[in-house]
């Protein structure tokens, strides 16, 4: 399955590895923040509903 990368294997694999980690990090961070803000907003709205 794995293609033959020859003597550049380390180079290519680390380039792919680091890039995918960076992408995954960005996506994970965006999702995490989205969930957090969404929850905080819901809480806040619920609280203010009660007060009004």
């Amino acid at each position, binding site marked *: 399955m794995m293609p033959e990368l020859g003597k550049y294997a380390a180079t290519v694999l680390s380039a792919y590895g*680091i*890039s995918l980690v960076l*992408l995954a990090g960005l996506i994970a961070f965006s999702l995490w923040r989205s969930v957090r803000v969404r929850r*905080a907003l819901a809480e806040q709205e619920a609280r203010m509903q009660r*007060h009004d």
Partner: protein
Amino acid sequence: MSIWEYANPKRFMQTSGALLPWVSIAAVILTVAGLVWGFFFTPDDYRQGSTVKIIYLHVPSAMMAINIWIMMLVTSIIWLVRRHHVSALAAKAAAPIGLTMTLIALVTGAFWGQPMWGTWWAWDPRLTAFLILFLFYLGYIALWEAIESPDGAADLTSILCIVGSVFALLSRYAVLFWNQGLHQGASLSMDKREHVADVFWLPLLVSIAGFVLGFVALMLLRTRTEIRSRRLRALEARERMS
């Protein structure tokens, strides 16, 4: 209905909410397809060996890094002229994506440069201009973070984005005078298409499309988050007042 209607946050939330899943799915499919195709099912280049596979990451991310800044320029101008909040928040949401793209392009380029040019880094015009772009992203994000008032931050970052664009362009062309480059010219343009053989070209196109859609999906997601957090701040402030 005018296009400006979408600058209405509620409208934007509705539309983007409906769009987001489809764009995300398409982005994942295209990116994975492009990268898998490129990584597993293309031959090695006769000169570059297997390092040519880096192209499927390097070129899309480098293109996106530049295009995202241009998109931020457009939304910043829209904010300054028409004061649509979604526009400013979209620019804010896009910046970290641009920063990541810049980092990916820098890292993959450096890994590619090591075998090809025998050095990780060279002070080549294109590379130099790109590094400056990286710094602009950093400064732009830091300025957003530093200012408390949201509208003030939107104003100031927009001004920075416009002035920065001029300088980003300037340094891109200015460095041409500075010394000669190692880096590839524009090998993707139509008239020079033969520079990249079709076997590499097609998966590259798919991968580029995937990156573009991935950017759109992330941007929608992040803009939605920014709008929500903006509303959250307004509610908190309101609560504090009463």
